[in-house]
Structures are given as C-alpha cells and as structure tokens.
C-alpha cells in the first residue's frame, strides 16, 4: 500500500489591496485573450456548430442493404438490451432463406431514449447505428416517436455525419440463422419483444 502523505492546507491570506488588483489583472487578461487573441471559449451558436467526434451518440439510423431495404432482421436484440424500453419492433417474413425476417414496424421513442448506444452494441448485423444529429424538436409527443421511414432517411446522415457505430464490416448472414437455431435447441431461447 502506498504511504499516506498528508498535507495540511495553508490558510494565510494577503492583507490589503494587492489580491484585488491581481484579480482585476486576470479579468482584463481574459478579456484581451477573448477579444483580440482569438482564444474565445465560446462559439457563435447556431451559425457555428460544435464539432463532435465520430463516436457521438445522436439520433439513430437503420442501415440499408444495396436494394434499399433495411439490414435489420428483427431479432429483437436491441429492444432486449435497451435500458429505457424505447424500441418497438414488429417482424414480417422475407422470402430470402438467408434473411428470413425484416421489421414491418420499427419505432424508437426518442423521448424515452437515453442515447446510451446499447442497441448498437447489441446488434449482430450492424443494422442500427447512431448519427451526430442532436437538435431534436417536436411540437407533440407523437412526433418524437420516429418510425422506420424516418430511421431510414439518408439526408440527415449526410448533413450531420455518422456517429457511434460498430467498426467491423464483415457480416456473413448464414451464421446468424444457424446460431439462432442452436440457441433455441440448446438453451430454449427464442428472442422476441421483451415483456415489460
């Protein structure tokens, strides 16, 4: 264990006017730094926007296949992992053997969402990711429950840039079907919408 070095804090103060003059000097130095030296700590919002990193956790997006349909296979993993219970999914069937399911409804309640990114972590298909969009305005609650079409909109992504997303891009789908089958057989788990 490290030795405990205890230091007693020094309580003396300077009498007289000196500390006040020193304080004034600091205030003026900061004024000069801000006005003339370009070291302003603030930005001219909203004309100027803050630059956020590529890991920013903003509003979600559903990624698309080449034919424009969602990559999502309605496995309910994001809805299960969500700590805020804000994702609602209904599944439909697709004819392709390697895909099987797709979401007929995919809704995220952005008023409940806590933007933790757990849905992205839980997704086995990199079908859901987050953008850097963060200015969210609505006049009714219903407006802020966004549906599949809004989640598939690409314009916003171009405007704000991509945010938190998995970095690997090698999805081989047949693995998932086999894994789900084994999961059912060996552990009796059939993923579905979580019961709340």
């Amino acid at each position, binding site marked *: 264990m490290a030795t405990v070095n205890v*230091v007693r*804090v020094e309580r003396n103060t300077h009498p007289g006017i000196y500390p006040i003059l020193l304080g004034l000097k600091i205030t003026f130095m900061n004024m000069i730094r801000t006005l003339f030296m370009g070291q302003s700590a603030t930005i001219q919002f909203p004309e100027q926007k803050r630059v956020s990193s590529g890991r920013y956790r903003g509003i979600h997006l559903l990624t698309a296949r080449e034919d424009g349909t969602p990559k999502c296979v309605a496995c309910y993993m994001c809805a299960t992992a969500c700590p805020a219970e804000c994702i609602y999914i209904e599944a439909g069937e697709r004819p392709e053997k390697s895909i099987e399911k797709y979401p007929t409804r995919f809704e995220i309640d952005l008023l409940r969402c806590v*933007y*933790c990114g757990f849905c992205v972590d839980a997704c086995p298909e990199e079908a859901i990711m987050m953008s850097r969009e963060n200015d969210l305005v609505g006049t009714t609650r219903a407006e802020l429950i966004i549906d599949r079409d809004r989640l598939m909109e690409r314009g916003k992504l171009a405007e704000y840039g991509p945010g938190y997303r*998995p970095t690997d891009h090698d999805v081989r789908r047949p693995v998932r079907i086999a894994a789900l089958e084994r999961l059912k057989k060996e552990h009796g788990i059939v993923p579905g919408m979580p019961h709340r």
Partner: protein
Amino acid sequence: MASVLETPQAPAASTSPTVRILREKLGDQVLRVDEWRGDLAVTVSRKAWVEAARTLSFHPELDYKLFLDLCGVDWLDRDGHDDRFEVALHVYSVSHKHHVRLKVPIPESDATLDTIVGVYKGANWFERETWDLYGIVFNGHPNLSRLLTHDSFVGHPMRKDYETPKRHLLKEAKQWLLKVPEGSEHMIVNIGPSHPAMHGAFRVQALMDGETIQDAEAEIGYMHRNFEKMAEERTYWQVIPYTDRLNYCSAFMNGHGYALAVEKLLGVPAPPRAEAIRVILSEFSRIMDHFICIGANVVDLGAITPFFVVFRAREAIYDLIEACCGARLTVSYVRIGGLAQDVPDDFEARARTAIASVRDVTSQMEKLLTRNPIFANRFKDVGVMSAEDALSWGWVGPCLRGSGVAYDVRKDHPYSGYEQYDFDVPVGTVGDCYDRYLVRVEEIHQSVRIIEQALAKLPKGPVITDDKKVALPPKSEVYSNIEALMNHFKLVYEGILPPAGEVYGYTEGANGELGFYIVSDGGKFPYRLKVRPPCFAIYAAFSEMIKGGLLADAVAIIGGLNVIAGELDR
C-alpha cells in the same frame, strides 16, 4: 482470474477482533457471521441492535466511528429468510481501516427497530429513508416522516410486492416544515425549492430572528425517481446509463464505482489498460466536479468571474470525454469488466491539452480567490464542523478531509491501481468553509499529478475482460463465428448471472465515498442495489450547521458542501 462460479458464503470461523468483541458483548445474540469477497458481515438479533451499534462505535479496539449507510432489504418469501425484512448498517473504522456490515432480521408482523440516532447522527435521514421506502418503523426516531417520496404518497415503494406501475396524484406541497412557536413574531423564510442559491431543487425552511437563523429544516426528494427500484428491474449491464444520472457533475465516476462493485461481486477484474483509463477519466471528472463546486459556490457569494474562468478547462475535459465515448455528460463508457471501447488514437495528446488548460485556469482561480481577503472573510470560521461530528454524520470526501480526517479511499483501500501513483491527501485544520475550499483546490493539483503518472505508463492490451460470461464478444467475431454469435445472443438475452451473495463496493467519488451495496440472488437482475450517496449524508447535517448563524452564511455553506440533486434524491 477468479471464476464466476466460485461457491459463495462459506461460513467462516472469523478471527477478526470485531467478531470476537461483538461475541463477548452480545453472546448468542450474534446470529451469524459471513465473510465473502473481503466483506465482513455480522447478523445480530433485534434485541441487540442498538447495543451492537454502540459497541462498534465506542469500543476502543473497534472505533467504527464513520457512519456510512443504513438501508433495508425486503426478502418477501425467499427461502432461507424466516423474517421478511432486513436492515443493513455499514460503518467504517478510520483508525483500523476496516469496514463492517451489521445486519438485523425483522419480521413482517412487527416491522419495528430501535433507532441508532443516539449512536450515529447520520442515521437520522437514512432511517427516515428506510421507513419511507420499506415501511420499517424506527422506535424513538426524532422525526420519522417521508423523506424521498411525497408526503401524501401511499405505500412503501421498495417493497417487493409494491406494483411498479402504480400512480398517485400528489398535489399539496408541505407548507410548514417547522413548528412555529405560538405568538412568535419571528419570520419563516423558505429558501428553495427553486432559488438561485440552492444548487438544484431542494428546500430549506428557516425560522429567522432578524438575520440569524433560529431553527431550520430541510426537505428533499423533488428529483426522486427511485433509481434503486429501477435497478431491480434492469440487468447489471442496463443499470450503467442510470448511474450517469446520479452525480451528473462527474458522471464517469459513478459508472466506475458501479462497475467495480459488480466486478467484486463476480470476482472478474478488468484488464490493466481499462483500469488505467478509468483512473485518468475519473480524475478528470473529479477536477470538473471540484471546479463546478468552487465556481458555483463563489457565484452565490457574488463573484461570477471564477465560474466562467474554470469553464474553459471544463470544455477541454468534456471534449476529451466525448471523443472517448460519444457523449459529454451521460457517458455510459464503462462496462462490467472493462470499457465499451478503447480510447481514440489522439487520446494522450488531447489529455495533455486538457491538463494544460486545467493548470492554466486553476492558477487563475487561485489568484482570484485563495489569498483574497474579501473572499476569505466570507469563508473563514463559517460552517465549522468538528472531526468527531463529521464522522458521526457520515461525512466523507473533501468535506471530511476539510475537518482534518485523512480518509481517502484511493489511499486507504486502493482500487483500479491507485497504489501505483504517488499523490498526497490534503486535510484541513479548522473544518470551516475555507478549509473545504482549500482541500478541493489541492485535490485538483493532486488529480493532475495522478493523471500525468497514469498517462506516462498507460499499459497496452485489451480494454475489456475476455470472460465470456461477462463481456460481449468483439463484433468481428459476432459477425463471423457461430459460437461467438450464440454467446452474444445469450448474453444480451440473459444478462450477466453473478453468484448469489452480497458485496459493498466503494470508491472515492468527487464528493467522497460512493458505495454500492449489491445483494444478488443469482438472477439476471440485482435483487437489491443500494447506492451510498456521499452528499446525502453531508446534506443531512446542513440544517443543524446553519442554526445560530446568519442567513448569508447558510448560502456560503451550502455551495461548499457540493450537494448534487441527482445523487441526493436518486
């Protein structure tokens, strides 16, 4: 690496002096002794409860003076528990550097327990909270009324049979917290719940004699959302975003403390790189928290410049945190067993920029405040708290150290590799507002020292444990490997399954010892998760501290206690 499947709670013939002395004093009233994961838990009968607490506190060989936590547990009809309720007390001995948990079973038919307010002053609010949430009546308590929930709330929400979706319509605010003496011409002043000098929504009612406060009473709970009940319906993983909202001025440290507590329960440590990054970000969070505390405190006194000066450094730190995890405030960066992802490549350069900025603004802030007589005169000898009282109230962190007790979890019980770093523990001599301020400033300097040492020897390697039962497999494997994908599905679906048992994990938060008392029944949800919020105990002493002082002094005191509503009300 210890296995998750280790058998818990092997009954131990303890050689600890605590157990020996309690056995000598109480005889067969000591029902059970458990030692697990380094925690000592002693169960006593209800008759011996106060005597046991008294022995722990006053016996010279034990000296458990620091009150930490008191909470209830509801076992409903679980096997192995004849009595429905249980009350757990956590206390700490600063001289012997030892924690102990004292438990007492309480039957449902007669859910009462004698109060220990006479032994530990801090027990007052914790007992009120336990009554509020569990309905356990504390005999002899001076003011057993609702604390966190509203006064017209019906039922006790933390009981297992309380239906979570139940709603109550609560309209009337409690008008009088104090009893006004008949025919008195003194004036009652409400400070808060919405007042610029209150740092969040909480209320103090003061009985004024001119400028002097005769009597005062505090009311909290305006931001109560029952984090603990929510945690009982979430997997261990899903609790992490909720911890960010406890002390939101240093959000990362809550997650750090929670993850360490769960890792202690599991017996799965995080890899060294993750621990070093956790230390760096925790220390940055501590710096931010101290900045906001000092800045907001002097704003209350009328000095607005230092508040804006320190914001320059806070921006640099927030930028760093955002680059690591994608959010400035609600970080959700830790995972059980490590971190969500590795830091970005330019982490060190960014951290060094942030350090330079911290150095710059700290020096400016010190010049503006520390030796300035106008500022010091408002702080010196105001809100004096003696070391003995501070321990009894359960004060921790900078406030306790300001009173002269050198207890710092990072030094006394190093976690996350704090033993590798060289740093000092500043303590005050008087225990007034000025000492608390000076301790915080010195801690900023010490945090910078720790960060620089940690950056210099940041280890390479993974940032999350490879234990398949705890951490999600890497995405590349999830996409291509059937075993990994199955494990991924299973872990998301079933969550982490820890062994049954209970642990108290504690870390040094920005406000002091932040504890998580986790009771696990082996299921995917925590059976009971109690947060030991540092500022709850600190604020409990506030209305006692301001009695007899000036109203203007009360404003100076509250800022220096750094009460954060998110942590206070949970």
